[in-house]
């Protein structure tokens, strides 16, 4: 990982010339920029000269990441000093030209004055256009970033039957707009910062002022500032750097590509992080049950949502313990299986040459391979892979007598159950943990499973996400928050926000007495 502590000696391009001020000579500056960018062909330098005095002026931008129209507009407006209007003297000295530009060149509303080479490069590389006037040791930059980006499309990983079809894209501005459009409140506060020494990635922290706990916001702000990595290519980097317990298999930050999910979480007092270059926003604090919920739970009727939530939790338990319990029952606790079923299973296992545990391990392993192959392949081939893998391989293995049909049923049931967990990263953790629990079941039967399960629950209880206990609101138990954990009560009765995000405005709807 290219992450280093701040105390270490700086190295690489990012830090060289940090303190080097801009040269007053235009030629020098342009040359410096050129050489620092390695004579990159996508660096465009437009040279102008003022009519009076012929003061050299240059506009610099990088071709691919700027919007041509914006660049033209910015330069045009900056060059308007030639036509200051009636009764005003046309500036002629470089200082006058520059100050005119600085004061009047209002085109994008995001002008900055740049005094050193490094900031100049950074501005260029984030898509700004930089204006240089010969004889002035400062530069003026305007935001002109643009270029090609993906259009807003349907969410690919968090599909819902009902609800908004919009998903985040890679552009930070677009993503902010998507959230803003959903919460038209002045209390939606944003803070932007740049992370990554090399990548200089823009990141926006979003929260509802007055709802989010200020301590938590400050805490997160400090943590983000403390991040010292040279590259942030995806929100996953931030997620891993922010995690409090680095060795836990459980995710403590929720990621989503749905703006409505972000909006909903913001309104419950959580904080969102949008990172440039990825459609996945991070939400924290994220407790275990956040990963088990989807936005659609709130769009569908409460009774259906409740049933589905319970179903998901059962599926989670099956996908975590299913194969382990099967192996334990078959190897240790044969008396637990009803007699006709046991005889059936015994006749299925006749001729299977492997111990149950190896058989289970083999099948689980095969299943994971099929799944991984299916994900990495282009989607039409991916489907073929899963069909060949799942149907043909399974059927052939059974017919060859290598695997018992019951094992295929258990393994595929487990696999299907693990797809019901809405959050993909939680499902991944469960997949990994399943193998550990299978080992425990194969070595010590139910006792092993129970003890490992106990330790797992203890571990989950020890986690915190931004100060909030991971298993809340079950442990610590918050009776008021049970309305939205396993059951989802009708929206009409959901009058308060979750307590454990420590938000200040508890009420969502006016109570009957208040209205």
């Amino acid at each position, binding site marked *: 990982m290219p992450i280093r502590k701040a105390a270490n000696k700086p190295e690489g391009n990012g830090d060289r010339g940090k303190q080097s001020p801009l040269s007053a000579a235009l030629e020098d500056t342009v040359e410096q920029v050129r050489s620092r960018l390695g004579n990159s062909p996508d660096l465009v330098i437009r040279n102008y000269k003022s009519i009076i005095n012929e003061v050299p002026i240059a506009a610099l931008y990088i071709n691919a990441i700027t919007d041509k129209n914006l660049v033209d507009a910015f330069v045009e407006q900056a060059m308007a000093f030639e036509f200051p209007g009636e009764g005003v003297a046309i500036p002629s000295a470089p200082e006058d030209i520059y100050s005119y530009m600085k004061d009047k060149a209002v085109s994008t509303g995001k002008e900055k004055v740049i005094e050193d080479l490094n900031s100049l490069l950074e501005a260029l590389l984030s898509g700004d256009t930089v204006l240089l006037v010969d004889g002035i040791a400062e530069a003026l930059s305007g935001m002109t970033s643009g270029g090609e980006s993906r259009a807003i499309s349907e969410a690919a990983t968090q599909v819902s039957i009902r609800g908004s079809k919009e998903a985040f894209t890679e552009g930070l501005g677009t993503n902010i707009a998507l959230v803003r459009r959903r919460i038209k409140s002045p209390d939606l506060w944003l803070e932007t910062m740049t992370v990554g020494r090399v990548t200089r990635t823009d990141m926006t922290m979003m929260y509802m002022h007055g709802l989010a706990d200020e301590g938590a916001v400050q805490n997160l702000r400090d943590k983000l500032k403390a991040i010292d990595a040279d590259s942030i290519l995806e929100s996953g980097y931030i997620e891993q750097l922010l995690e409090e317990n680095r060795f836990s298999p459980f995710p403590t930050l929720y990621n989503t590509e749905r703006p409505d999910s972000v909006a909903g979480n913001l309104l419950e007092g959580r904080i969102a992080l949008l990172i440039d270059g990825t459609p996945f926003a991070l939400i924290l604090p994220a407790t275990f049950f956040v990963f088990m919920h989807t936005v659609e739970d709130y769009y569908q009727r409460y009774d259906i949502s409740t049933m589905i939530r319970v179903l998901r939790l059962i599926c989670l338990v099956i996908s975590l313990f299913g194969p382990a319990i099967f192996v334990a029952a078959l190897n*240790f*606790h044969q*008396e*637990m299986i*009803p*007699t006709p079923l046991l005889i059936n299973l015994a006749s299925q296992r006749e001729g299977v040459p492997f111990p149950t545990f190896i058989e289970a391990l083999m099948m689980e392993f095969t299943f994971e391979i099929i799944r991984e192959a299916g994900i990495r392949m282009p989607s039409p081939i991916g489907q073929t892979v899963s069909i060949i893998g799942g149907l043909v391989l399974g059927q052939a293995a059974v017919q060859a007598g290598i695997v018992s049909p019951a094992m295929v049923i258990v393994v595929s049931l487990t696999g299907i159950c693990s797809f019901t967990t809405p959050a993909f990263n939680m499902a991944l953790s469960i997949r990994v943990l399943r193998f550990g629990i299978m080992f425990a079941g194969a070595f*010590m*039967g*139910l*006792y*092993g499973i*129970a*003890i490992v399960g*106990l*330790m797992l*629950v*203890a*571990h989950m*209880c*020890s986690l915190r996400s931004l100060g909030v*206990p991971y*298993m809340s609101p*079950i*442990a*610590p*138990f918050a*009776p008021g928050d049970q309305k939205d954990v396993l059951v989802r009560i009708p929206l009409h009765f959901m009058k308060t926000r979750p307590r454990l995000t420590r938000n200040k405005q508890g009420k969502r709807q006016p109570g009957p007495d208040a209205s």
Partner: protein
Amino acid sequence: MRKEAIGPFQLFAMIVLFELGTALVVPIGLESGHAVWLAILLALPGGIILVLIYGYLYKQFPDLTISGYMRRILGRAAGWPLALLIVPVFLYNGSRNLREAGDLLISASYDKTPVIIINSIMVIAVMYILYMGIEVFARTAEIYFIVVVIMGLICAFVVIAAGLVKLDNLFPVLPGQWLEALQSAYPNILIFPYGELVCFTTILPHFTAKRKVNGVAVAALVLSSLMLGFTHALEMSVLGPDIYSRTTFPMFTTITLVNVANFIQRLDAFVILTLIFGVFFKMSIYCYAAVSITADLFRIKDTHRLVLPVGVVVLLSSFVSAEDYPAHMADGIVFLEKILPIPCAVIPILLYVVHRLRLRFKLYR
């Protein structure tokens, strides 16, 4: 480091789990015949009085564990050694629980597995959770409270649904049997399981809602007493007094009889799991109590360092203490009658009386 905090529901869940612990699975109050359920309920008032004494002492010294206020009340010279004597009692009781769990597991389904492995796995889990701290422990207890209650309900439901209950085994309770029940209630059932709650005096300093302590403790005690009484009545009604008194684990025998629709049968696993969870929490609390008293007496800041020695001691004494299970049970009777009442009842009552006297005569500086 931030002080660890425990809320009312967490305390409630911990007390219930602690009370159910082994008492749910092993026969209690052996002498009371078929009125054992009555004995459990009869012992409840005494249990409540004991708990109120613990609660009173806690309210007087909200930041101190039992060893702390023992030194305050009795003076350092008398309090310190007396508190030190409590530690081995707790450790031994913890190891007894471990022994019982190990023995059920071995006689129920792990007959070929050495007891040392079964017990050390349990001890490892206990040590793990003690490293995590009492707060994490309390949260885990909350989750398992729900789990154990659900499992208990399932067990009770299938036993009743299987038509095994014969109320003839419970009634009538004749006058002589009332007396018998009363005799086994006091002091045996009063001490085990109610009096064992003395362990919580080491946990209470972390309790956040000082005012609610009595309410929470009494409510938990009543609930667990009702659950215990109901379970043992159920076992008695299914097995009858004869088999109930001969079986080592009545609950286990009860559940093996279940056969609903020829499909739901042999739910032994539920009983084993209930016992594992119960013993786990009970043992952890005993170990925690031993750790925190030791840490308090020897002024050890980092309690984590004590967890490993305590775990090892409990593990070793679990199979060194008695040759076989009948000997273990015989030891248990002596222990229950002679030793356990001292920390559970004698010391707290002594502390209460001395404290009141010193307050009355203004003997505190």
